[in-house]
């Protein structure tokens, strides 16, 4: 038994392993407490070993060195220290050479530096001295040039030569010195090489020696350690053996004890078992009977359950069948529904597309219709214009036709009058007087001016006054205007403007806002329209009334001007005329100039005047029905009267005379015609007679007669000449 070192350690560990469980309680022991203890110990031991392994060999040794195993540990520690020292010393020994060479190198470097410095100094000195010498020599050359005696020159040249030789010699010496040094250095180099080789040899030697030493000491130490471990192992073995024996004895004793205990216990247990068995048997029988009963009951129940089960199964099968069929149906329906859905989807899509199409179509239609509408409006406007135009033309035509017809009628009447006069004078021998009728003097159509509404007049007034300044054709217009002449347009306008300004409250607020962007004149117009509608002024007359009222009002309130008042009376009287009489009468009225007062009615009084006017206006108004304005329809009632009157130019009495005359004349005529006819008949008969005479003559003169046996002439008496004569 001589294991190597590494194994020794292992063995030692194994020994530990073996020794520990024996000391403590055994795992295989009968006592559970002891087993638990043993296991615990084992776990502890394992932990311990693991830790030891982790810590390494050294700690292992150290821990155990405290008591029995100190020997091996001491040995190991000792040898370790020894070896470490050895290694340290050895490396020091080896590295000493390096250190020594290092320091030698440093010294060499220092010396080298010194020598270098010296050499440099020397060289510099040399350079300086040689330079001096050289300068001297060059100076002497100058001198030599001045020398003229050849002897002197010769001498001088000699000395120069000597000097130069000296200089060169110096240089040569220096060079040889340097070469010497170089050689020395070479030698030194060789020596150094040798020295280094020696050093290396020494180093190798030392290293080898070191290796040898280390090996030797390692071996020694190994053997020492091994021995120590061996001894320790022996000791451990003996001690463990003793322990083991002791433990074995104790174990045997304990086992015997346990055996006895066990026998006792066994007997006890047997008794208990018998008792238990008997008791168990009884109980077992009881339970068996009970259970058998239970089994019977349960079997019955089972049968019942089976029956119900059968029933249920059939039912369920039937249900299943039904459900299957339903399922099929439902699938069919489902598919149908799906199809339907698809179809409906298609339709929906179609409808959508159609809808969009229609929207487009309608939009287009709408556009076209709007354009149509616009066009139509345009057309309508044009038509209106045309209509107005045509109305004018129609008027004109009508007038022309009227005139033509009138002329014709008058012509006819004239002729009738002529005839009448001829009859009177020629046939009757009565003196004739021309009848005098009103319609005979009439020329042109009977035009009755309709009454205009207040607003129209206002418009006209406004228009007129606007155009007044520029145009002189006012007269023409005035003919259409139905302004009462007593009130000038200007005054009216002013009054109206005042009214408009002052009675803004009568106008609706909405209208005002709408009026803002309009022109001034239009604005006035619309305002006045609104005011009039509020006041109840509708017709032309009302307007004039108003105007006159204002004028009057002012007159009343201006008593200061007495002269004026007298003048103002005139309008008062005139004022009634337009209301009662027609237009023509108005025109025929003497025109009265209404003096224009620069100051019209004061704006503040307008409202008062207005109020008074309205109060006054309301009374007469009430019974009157408002006139319906008929603008376009011409009053043709007088026309027929007129034309009828024209037809009755000749009175019926005269006609009767004419009729009687006519019949008498006709009778006369008849007689005359009869006579004329008779005359004609007479003529024709005469002629006929002559002809017949001629024919007879002819016949008589013809040859045939001569040939005849009996000549007709003979028969007849020829009366030709005589009859014609008679006749004629």
């Amino acid at each position: 038994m001589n294991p190597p070192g590494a194994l020794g350690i292992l063995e030692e560990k194994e020994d530990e392993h073996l020794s520990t469980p024996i000391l403590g309680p055994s795992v295989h022991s009968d006592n559970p407490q002891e087993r638990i203890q043993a296991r615990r110990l084992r776990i502890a031991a394992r932990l311990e070993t693991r830790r030891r392994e982790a810590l390494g060999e050294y700690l292992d040794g150290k821990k155990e060195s405290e008591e029995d195993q100190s020997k091996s540990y001491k040995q190991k520690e000792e040898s370790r220290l020894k070896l470490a020292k050895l290694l340290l010393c050895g490396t020091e020994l080896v590295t000493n050479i390096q250190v020594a060479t290092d320091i030698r190198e440093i010294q060499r470097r220092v010396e080298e530096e010194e020598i270098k410095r010296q050499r440099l100094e020397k060289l510099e000195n040399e350079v300086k001295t040689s330079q001096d010498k050289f300068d001297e020599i060059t100076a002497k050359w100058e001198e030599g040039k001045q020398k003229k005696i050849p002897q002197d020159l010769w001498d001088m040249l000699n000395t120069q030569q000597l000097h130069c030789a000296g200089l060169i010699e110096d240089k040569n010496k220096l060079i040889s010195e340097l070469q010497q040094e170089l050689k020395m250095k070479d030698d030194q180099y060789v020596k150094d090489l040798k020295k280094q080789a020696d050093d290396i040899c020494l180093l190798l030697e030392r290293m080898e020696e070191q290796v040898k030493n280390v090996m030797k000491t390692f071996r020694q130490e190994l053997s020492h350690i091994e021995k120590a471990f061996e001894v320790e192992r022996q000791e451990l073995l003996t001690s463990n053996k003793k322990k083991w024996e002791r433990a074995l004895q104790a174990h045997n004793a304990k086992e015997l004890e346990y055996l006895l205990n066990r026998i006792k216990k066994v007997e006890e247990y047997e008794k208990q078992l018998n008792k238990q068995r008997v008791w168990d048997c009884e109980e077992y029988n009881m339970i068996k009977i009970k259970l058998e009963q239970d089994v019977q009951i349960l079997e019955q129940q089972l049968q019942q359950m089976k029956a119900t089960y059968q029933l249920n199964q059939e039912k369920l099968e039937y249900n299943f069948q039904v459900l299957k069929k339903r399922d099929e149906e439902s699938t069919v329906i489902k598919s149908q529904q799906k199809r339907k859905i698809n179809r409906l989807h298609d339709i929906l899509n179609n409808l959508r597309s159609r809808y969009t199409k229609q929207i487009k179509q309608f939009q287009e239609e709408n556009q076209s219709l709007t354009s149509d509408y616009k066009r139509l409006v345009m057309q309508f406007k044009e038509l209106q214009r045309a209509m107005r135009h045509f109305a004018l033309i129609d008027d004109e035509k009508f007038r022309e036709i009227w005139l033509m017809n009138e002329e014709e009628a008058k012509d006819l009447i004239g002729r009738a009058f002529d005839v009448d006069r001829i009859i009177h004078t020629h046939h009757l021998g009565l003196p004739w007087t021309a009848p005098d009728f009103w319609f005979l003097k009439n020329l042109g159509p009977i035009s009755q001016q309709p009454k205009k509404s207040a607003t129209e007049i206002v418009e006209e007034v406004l228009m007129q006054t606007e155009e007044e300044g520029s145009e002189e054709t006012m007269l023409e217009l005035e003919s259409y205007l139905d302004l009462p002449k007593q009130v000038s347009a200007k005054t009216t306008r002013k009054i109206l403007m005042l009214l408009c300004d002052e009675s803004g409250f009568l106008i609706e607020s909405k209208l005002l806002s709408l009026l803002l962007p309009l022109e001034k004149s239009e604005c006035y117009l619309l305002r006045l329209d609104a005011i009039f509608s509020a006041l109840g002024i509708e017709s032309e007359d009302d307007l004039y009334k108003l105007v006159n009222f204002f004028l009057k009002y002012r007159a009343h309130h201006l008593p200061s001007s007495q002269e004026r008042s007298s003048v103002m009376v005139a309008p008062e009287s005139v004022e009634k005329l337009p209301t009662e009489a027609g237009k023509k009468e108005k025109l025929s009225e003497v025109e009265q100039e209404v003096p224009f007062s620069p100051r019209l009615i004061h704006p503040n009084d307008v409202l008062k005047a207005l109020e008074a006017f309205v109060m006054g206006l309301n009374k007469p108004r009430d019974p009157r029905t408002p006139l319906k304005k008929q603008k376009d329809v011409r009053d043709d009632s007088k026309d027929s009267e007129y034309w009828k009157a024209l037809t009755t130019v000749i009175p019926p009495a005269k006609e009767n005379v004419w009729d009687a005359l006519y019949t008498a004349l006709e009778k006369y005529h008849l007689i005359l015609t009869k006579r004329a006819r008779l005359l004609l008949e007479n003529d024709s008969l005469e002629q006929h007679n002559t002809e017949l005479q001629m024919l007879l003559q002819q016949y008589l003169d013809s040859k045939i007669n001569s040939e005849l046996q009996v000549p007709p002439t003979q028969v007849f008496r020829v009366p030709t000449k005589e009859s014609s004569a008679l006749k004629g």
Partner: protein
Amino acid sequence: MQDNLTPLPMSVFSRPSETTQDQSSAASQATSTAPQPVKATVVTPPIKSKGLNTSNVRRMRRIIAEDAEWSLAIVPLLSELCIQHIVKNFQNNPILTQLLPEDQRKILDHLSPDLPLTVTANLIENENYWRRCCTQRWPVCHVARHGSSWKRMFFERHLENLLKQFIPGTTDPAVILDLLPLCRNYVRRIQVDQFLPPIRLPPPPREGDQSDSGSEGEMEESSTDHYQLRDLVAGLKHLEELDLVYGVKDCGMNFEWNLFLFTYRDCHSLAATIKACHTLKVFRLTRSRMDDDKARILMRSLLDHPALEELDLSHNLIGDRGVRTAAKLLSHSRLRVLNLANNQVRAPGAQSLAHALAHNTNLVSLNLRLNCIEDEGGQALAHALQTNKCLTTLHLGGNELSEPTATLLSQVLSVNTVLTSINLSCNHIGLDGGKQLLEGMSDNKTLLEFDLRLSDVAQESEYLISQALQANREAARQRALNPSHFMSPTTSGPENSAG
């Protein structure tokens, strides 16, 4: 330990011997000794049986019938024959991945290490095969230096050999570039300790050093450019380490300065190369006589490099200006290790380094051995260490430091809790300086190494310091073993004994 040692001498011996012998030795290494005789029997019969097959089947049968010793066990299996055939024709028809794992193993055990790399490089992953290849080529193989991968080792060393033998202008660059697709997945490090300069003389002798000695005096700097690594490095996907020396090895007495010329063109090309290589972690350029300007070019290209962790520019001619760039690089990279040993750094350079170091949080190790930073630089560095919380290793050996630096360093020692190793050897610390350092050490609990050899320190203080270091080392060991229960061993001991 014995098991590890044995293969090396064996491989050494087997190397000069014949290939068969080598194969057998390799096989003996790869497999246990038991299968070897079995395989020997397997190898021999196929030849026989093949001859018989071709000649006459009947006769063979008759012979077998008469042979009393004949048994089915002697007849090689068809699968064995197939494997044999595959091994024989592996160069022309490499069948491996389609086979069962067992058969694959057999084939790999029998493949010759001389197969062309184009066949094997991307096909064979088996370490045993590559191990045979390596041991056949090189007597000494440190697999551990190559990530414990024989394949990687093989390709790395193969590439290094090619690079070492490359003579610009003479060797065909395709030699290296052809290898690129084969080794791009395996090479992680390029370690080249010599770059041969181009040859000027028309007859090129085999050895580079002789040719260089012959072309003495005719070398011009423009013509001494070395191999440009750009294409190679760009092709290698996993390159992490670049260890270069622009120089010639073993020149002996044929020494000439031109052999060690790191030209500007080399420098620019190298700078561009390492800038483009984003996987590079370690970059070493030593013993190349690199001066300030070249160092600055290189280090400028390394600014903000994404991966670089270690930069080694030892044994060059870098002065204060170069070091200033290095200081700038410190604050613009994730550099963890910076080695500027044996350069010409003086006090200003050390001051700029100290300035960068004061707020640096990446640098772990700084080496300024064999420079001449003197007390001014040393004091600046000591001041920087008072605020620095990262640096663990500092080497200031051979820097002409003396007492003032020591006093400042002793203050640092009592404050700093990160430093684990300081080297002040070969300085002139002096007796008083030693005492002050000892005072500083008494408050320090983290320093593990403190080298004061040959620095004029009194033996007594040196001994006391080493005692303190010893204590610190013990404490560190405790911490390393038991990081969670820092003070537990003393408290848990009695507990354990009680339980």
